[in-house]
């Protein structure tokens, strides 16, 4: 197992390196425009552009430029120029909001996805299954940018149960923190619940046909034991993989739209604004941040998968 983890970690570093090179090439090398110009932003003065050119060393050979860029990233010198703030500071500032949003939504979608999928599978073909399947498909079909305004209109404006926007840090006021996050959580989770319910249902139905489920029944286990310890347990393995990837992608940037609509001051919102103003340093910074989380979650998921499925962990031996 240790060998397995080491390999994955090394792989992770290699991938991150590759991603950083790609970011470098895409943003610095490929565009026809002078990279210093792109970095400086829309309202750049010629002096600013000149300073950037010197700082970033655009006359140096490419590998040197890459190293300069990476040095800036790691030492927190990646600056956005209008206003002048280090990108990484801004990202770190946005993390609590983004994490609160995505982790909360993830917990909700995982819990309900499993629950609804389980119920659907156990009562497959019945009326409950049909209703849940319909709801799941509806959930998958409704786009976030439609759902959010509808929720805001209903619950925030009309019924005035929840506030319509803003993020309140946990440390400031836990009650309000929760209050402000409910609608965003629901928005983000609805789509995923539908999807996960379908996946869990499908995996469970497959697992129910397996021989070991028949053995479990033949041993005299109760139906609930059979469903949870055997069917659900084995169905979870692919779901874990999926969840890891989805969670990574969500932290990395899928939450952008939700943050934008609800005006939650997280990394996603930062990225949305930067894209709107075409400010290159924040975009690069967020790209690297996103890549980091996706790769991290991928690795975590691989390790978790090996833990859950002993065949992967120990390798196929036998005989």
């Amino acid at each position, binding site marked *: 197992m240790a060998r397995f983890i080491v390999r994955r970690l090394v792989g992770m570093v290699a991938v991150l390196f590759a991603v950083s090179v790609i970011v470098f090439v895409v943003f610095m090398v490929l565009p026809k425009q002078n990279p210093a110009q792109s970095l400086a932003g829309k309202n750049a003065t010629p002096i600013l552009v000149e300073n950037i050119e010197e700082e970033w060393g655009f006359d140096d050979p490419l590998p040197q430029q890459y190293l300069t860029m990476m040095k800036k990233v790691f030492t927190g010198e990646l600056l956005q120029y209008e206003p002048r703030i280090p990108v990484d500071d801004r990202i770190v500032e946005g993390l609590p909001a983004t994490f609160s949003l995505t982790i909360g939504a993830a917990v909700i979608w995982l819990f309900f996805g499993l629950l609804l999928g389980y119920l659907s599978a156990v009562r497959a073909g019945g009326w409950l299954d049909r209703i849940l399947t319909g709801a799941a498909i509806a959930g998958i079909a409704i786009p976030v940018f439609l759902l959010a305004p509808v929720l805001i209109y209903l619950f925030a404006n009309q019924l005035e149960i929840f506030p319509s926007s803003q993020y309140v840090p946990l440390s400031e006021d836990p009650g309000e923190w929760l209050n402000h996050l409910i609608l965003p959580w629901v928005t983000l989770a609805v789509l995923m619940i539908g999807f996960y319910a379908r996946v869990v249902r499908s995996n469970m139905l497959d697992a129910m046909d397996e021989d070991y489920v028949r053995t479990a029944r033949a041993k005299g*286990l109760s139906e609930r034991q059979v469903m949870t*310890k055997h069917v659900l347990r084995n169905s979870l*393995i692919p779901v874990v993989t999926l969840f890891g990837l989805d969670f990574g992608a969500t932290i990395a940037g899928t939450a952008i739209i939700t943050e934008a609509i609800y005006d939650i001051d997280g990394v996603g919102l930062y990225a949305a604004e930067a894209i709107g103003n075409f400010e290159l340093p924040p975009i690069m910074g967020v790209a690297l941040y996103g890549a980091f989380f996706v790769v991290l979650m991928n690795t975590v998921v691989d390790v978790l998968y090996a833990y859950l499925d002993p065949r992967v962990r120990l390798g196929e031996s036998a005989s």
Partner: protein
Amino acid sequence: MSARALLSVRDLRVGFTTEDGLLQAVDGVSFDLRPGEVLAIVGESGSGKSVTAQTMIGLTRARNSRIEGSVELAGEELMSAGDAKMRQLRGERIAMVFQDPMTSFNPVYRIGAQIVEAIRAHRPETSKAEGRARAVELLGAVGIPDPERRVDAYPHEFSGGMRQRAMIAMALALEPEVLIADEPTTALDVTIQAQILRLLEQLNRERNLATILITHDLGVVAEIADRVLVMYAGKVVEQGTLDEIFYDPQHPYTWGLLGSLTRLDQPRPKRLPQIAGSPPSLLDLPQGCPFRPRCPHEFSKCPQYPPLEARLPDAPGHCDRCWLTPEEKGEKRVVAGRIGLEAPNA
């Protein structure tokens, strides 16, 4: 039938409603199992042998299944018993072992854990340590070397033969009265098969464990069975003692099965005697005897459904479902010096 029967099946019928109509998988099966006896149920795919076994322990109860008839275990009726009662009985009084030990174990749990799970499902007061000790004991009893270590292994770390032994160990955990083995050796190599058969035979002898062995392999039957039931298209077409079935078979299907076997102890025939055609679709059975389309001895009485009857005066336990007279049977079943069904013109 004997009053001393441990398990008594009377007129069992199991049908499944499908999109294409009612599929009668089991159509009026009756037999007795005496304590300590090994009963072999022989048939090919579609014969209904597995469905019969699974129905006896309630595994076929579903919305689309229609079950009729009676199954009595030591006088207690099972078909009308509640689900909770059946669950209790499974594993504790009747245990079942299946064909493919690789897929019959859950790959993510250790073998020992799965055995302990079986124990604790019926004896929840058993501690984990006690359960584990019992699992080690059981693995040893079925001939697995080094059980102390092996009990913590995962299924894929065992070889095929070991896995099947572990399956049998798990089935014995609660000391059931009846063991049903559904094609236990079909997926195994022939040398391993011999070992498993020896194990089953030993368990039957030492523990007086009544065993139902389901198989398509008559060689396996000859090794360990006491009595034999031959099934075709959901019906019993012949039943009797081992010797009666092998040396005095009364039904053409049985002749066909015996004839198409390769015999290492006999010279090779020119052509392997075969049975023409294929097993019938259960949705589209012929009128009368189900074997008609494939039987070279079909005659005018066959469209009338033959009852299962003992037709030999000195063998009241030997029943068959064929209208031919015993004399005709004695004649027709010998093909090229052996028992078989006529080979079609080459």
